C-alpha cells in the first residue's frame, strides 16, 4: 500500500532541493505581465465588466498592502523571492509595475496602453539582457528599435505620419524611462508612464494635426457565455 504521507514528504524534500535562478525568475515574471492584455479581449457582459472594474484595483491594493507590511517589518523581506538589495528598504519594483499597468488600463486609450505595457513586459527584460551581455551603446540602439517596434505594430491602423511620430516618440520615451534610474521611482513605472504621457499629448493633438484616430487593436471577444 502506498504511503501518501511518505510520498508527500518525499515530494516536499525534492522541491526543497531545487533552486531557482532569481534573475530568470524576474525575467519570466516581467513577460508574464503581457497576460494582462486579456483585459481588452474579455466579452462585453455586465458581470464581466463588473469584474474588470473591481479585480485589477483589488490586485494592486493587495500588492500595496503586502508592500506596506514588508517595509514596516511585519513581513520579512526574506520572504520575497527575487528582490534586489536596493529594494530592501524601498518600494519593490513589482508595485510600480502593477500600479502603472492599472493606470494604463483604466485611464488611457488602448492604442497607448498596449504598446506601453509591451515595452515594460517584453522590452524591459530584452533591454536588461542586452545590458548584461553587451555595452551600453547596444542598449540605446537595440532598446530604441525594440520599443519602437511595439509602437509600430500597435498603431498599424493609423496614418503613416502618425505611425512614424508615435513610434519615434514612444520608443524614445520608453528607452529614457528604462535607462534613467531613480532611487524613489522604479524604471518599471517610468518605462510605461513616460511614453504614455508623451503619447497622450500626441493623442490630444491628433484632431489639430488634421489626422484621424486609429481604430482599436483589440475588440471584446464575441464569446457567448
Amino acid at each position, binding site marked *: 500500500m502506498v504511503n501518501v504521507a511518505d510520498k508527500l514528504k518525499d515530494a*516536499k524534500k525534492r*522541491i*526543497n*532541493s*531545487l*533552486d*531557482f*535562478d*532569481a*534573475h*530568470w*525568475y524576474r*525575467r*519570466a*515574471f*516581467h*513577460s*508574464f505581465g*503581457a*497576460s494582462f*492584455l*486579456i483585459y481588452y*479581449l474579455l466579452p462585453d457582459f455586465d458581470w464581466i465588466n463588473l469584474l474588470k472594474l473591481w479585480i485589477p484595483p483589488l490586485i494592486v491594493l493587495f500588492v500595496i498592502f503586502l508592500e506596506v507590511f514588508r517595509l514596516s517589518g511585519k513581513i*520579512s*523581506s*526574506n*520572504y*520575497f*523571492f*527575487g*528582490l*534586489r*538589495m*536596493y*529594494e*530592501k528598504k524601498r518600494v519593490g519594483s513589482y508595485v510600480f509595475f502593477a500600479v502603472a499597468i492599472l493606470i494604463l488600463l483604466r485611464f488611457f486609450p488602448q492604442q497607448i496602453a*498596449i504598446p506601453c505595457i*509591451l515595452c515594460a*513586459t*517584453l522590452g524591459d*527584460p530584452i533591454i536588461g539582457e542586452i545590458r548584461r551581455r553587451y555595452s551600453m551603446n547596444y542598449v540605446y540602439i537595440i532598446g530604441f528599435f525594440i520599443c519602437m517596434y*511595439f509602437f509600430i*505594430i*500597435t498603431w*498599424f*491602423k493609423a496614418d503613416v505620419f502618425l505611425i512614424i511620430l508615435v513610434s519615434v516618440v514612444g520608443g524614445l520615451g520608453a528607452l529614457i524611462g528604462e535607462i*534613467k*534610474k*531613480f*532611487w524613489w521611482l522604479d524604471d518599471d513605472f517610468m518605462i510605461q508612464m513616460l511614453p504614455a504621457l508623451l503619447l497622450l499629448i500626441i493623442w490630444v493633438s491628433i484632431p489639430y494635426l488634421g489626422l484621424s484616430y486609429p*481604430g*482599436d*487593436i*483589440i*475588440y471584446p*471577444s*464575441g464569446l457567448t457565455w
Partner: protein
Amino acid sequence: MIKMDKNKMKYVKNHYYISRLIRTEILFTPLLIGLPLFVGSFFIYDWYIRGVVGNCTAYKGELILGIIIIIGNIAFDIPFIKSLRVLSKKK
C-alpha cells in the same frame, strides 16, 4: 538620479528562508508559464474565429499580439526552466 552599483543590483538572499520561498515559486510556476501562453492562444483563436472564419481584417491586431505574447514568453520561459533544471542537477 542615481547610478546603481553592482551590489545594490544583487538579489536578497537568506538560506534559512530560501527553501520555503523556492517551494512557493515552484507552485507559482505553472501559472507564470501557462497563463501567457493561454492568453496568446486566446488572441489567435479569436482572430481565427472572427477574422478568418468571419472574413474580417479588423482583427489582425489580435493575431500580432497573440504571436508577440507567445514568442516573448517562450523566449524567457525556456532559460527560466533551464536554470531550474541545471541548478537542481547540481544539488
